[in-house]
């Protein structure tokens, strides 16, 4: 028998290691995002618009703006992150990529964790950079800005991961935007409360670390449990 060019069927075929597979999913998502810069900047522009409208609607007086700054930064960040969640699985579900993930022989949980990480890098991390800037324009002292950065950075991890459950659950629903927001509300409210609290304490010069630690706990909860739930929801949607 002549040996043909690869690929041939080999028993016990060597598989891509799980970490490498997750890295491929992440690099794929980043590459795809940069091919569509419009979708990429959409949540960031949304955040900027919300943050700009508040001073116009309330008052340009900085002494009053600094009081609402934590709330504005966090509500805007939360909504922007929610806006981007709608795209998390949508395209992959349409073109059959999610199906191939589920049939890849790799852990679907691991692949979805990589997707959530990509979502956070593309929305959460940029929002963490924009957050302190918005707080500063609202009159927050420069000394408080690192705390705003850290709290949004950690809080957005929790938002991306806990939000992925809702995104997976609404995969079969047409025009799922509103349902997704409602489903995610119970997960996002604690993040909003402690995130805004940390920012407020930092602006007032009080110790903000405990609130950030709680945000960190929620992020860890998200990293460990959300991909499992999302994977189960994705499997149901594929049926």
């Amino acid at each position, binding site marked *: 028998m002549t040996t043909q060019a*690869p690929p041939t069927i080999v028993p016990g*075929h060597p598989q891509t290691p799980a970490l490498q597979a997750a890295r491929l*999913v992440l690099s794929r998502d980043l590459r795809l995002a940069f091919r569509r810069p419009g979708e990429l900047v959409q949540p960031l522009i949304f955040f900027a618009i919300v943050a700009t409208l508040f001073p116009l609607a309330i008052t340009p007086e900085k002494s009053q703006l600094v009081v609402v700054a934590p709330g504005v930064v966090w509500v805007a960040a939360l909504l922007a992150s929610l806006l981007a969640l709608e795209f998390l699985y949508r395209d992959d579900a349409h073109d059959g*990529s999610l199906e*191939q993930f*589920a*049939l*890849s022989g790799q852990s679907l949980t691991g692949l979805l964790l990589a997707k959530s990480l990509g979502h956070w890098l593309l929305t959460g991390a940029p929002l963490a950079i924009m957050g302190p800037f918005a707080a500063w324009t609202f009159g927050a002292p420069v000394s408080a800005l690192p705390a705003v950065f850290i709290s949004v950075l950690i809080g957005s991890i929790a938002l991306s991961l806990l939000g992925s459950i809702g995104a997976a659950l609404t995969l079969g629903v047409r025009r799922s935007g509103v349902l997704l927001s409602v489903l995610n509300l119970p997960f996002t409210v604690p993040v909003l409360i402690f995130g805004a609290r940390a920012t407020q304490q930092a602006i007032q010069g009080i110790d903000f670390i405990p609130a950030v630690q709680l945000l960190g706990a929620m992020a860890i909860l998200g990293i460990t449990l959300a991909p499992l739930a999302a994977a189960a929801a994705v499997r149901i949607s594929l049926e």
Partner: protein
Amino acid sequence: MTGRVREFMSNRVLAGEGLHLWRGDRHILRGVSLELRGGQILQLTGSNGAGKTTLLRALCGLAYLEEGKVFWCGENVRDNLHGFHADLAYVGHEPPLKADLTPRENLRYWVGMRRALTAAQIDSALDEVAADEWRERPVRTLSAGQRRRVALAGLTLMGVPLWMLDEPTTNLDTAGQSLVTRMLEAHVARGGLAVVAVHHELGISSAVTLHRMVLAS
């Protein structure tokens, strides 16, 4: 070595026993049973809505069966779903390609997720399906037939023993259809198995064991 591999492969068996599946109040799969060994092709035909795709998805483990079990090499696939999927390649109605990536990039991610790949292997698989300059263009700009060819290239690259194909010849020209036939023949000659849902008879040469199953609606 080749002989031993072939022997190993022909031991591979896909079996389904009394598969039942409901969609709402429609009883789609009504006690389907099948057995397929290495070197055999199962051709699924049936009118639209007869349950060809549903059966393929149930065999893959994507759809949950109300009753019945699927066995791969004697083992219930639900007991080791990851192991089963590592041996399985499923290509559905639509080629699972990202519109914004080129065929090369698509294969790198889609197949690379499963097995280590070199750029040369991807190129030779694309050569096999007669992809010329369009392998550098985003999939968005390709015709349906060209996308189908990219999916076929991915299929060969996976190097897995079990193929499940849903309408693999859709949108292909005559040359493309005979390419599918050649690929299937080469696959089973290596000891692979294939379950293929089609509307028209596959033009497989008589040397290959072709089983036929007609699903009634």
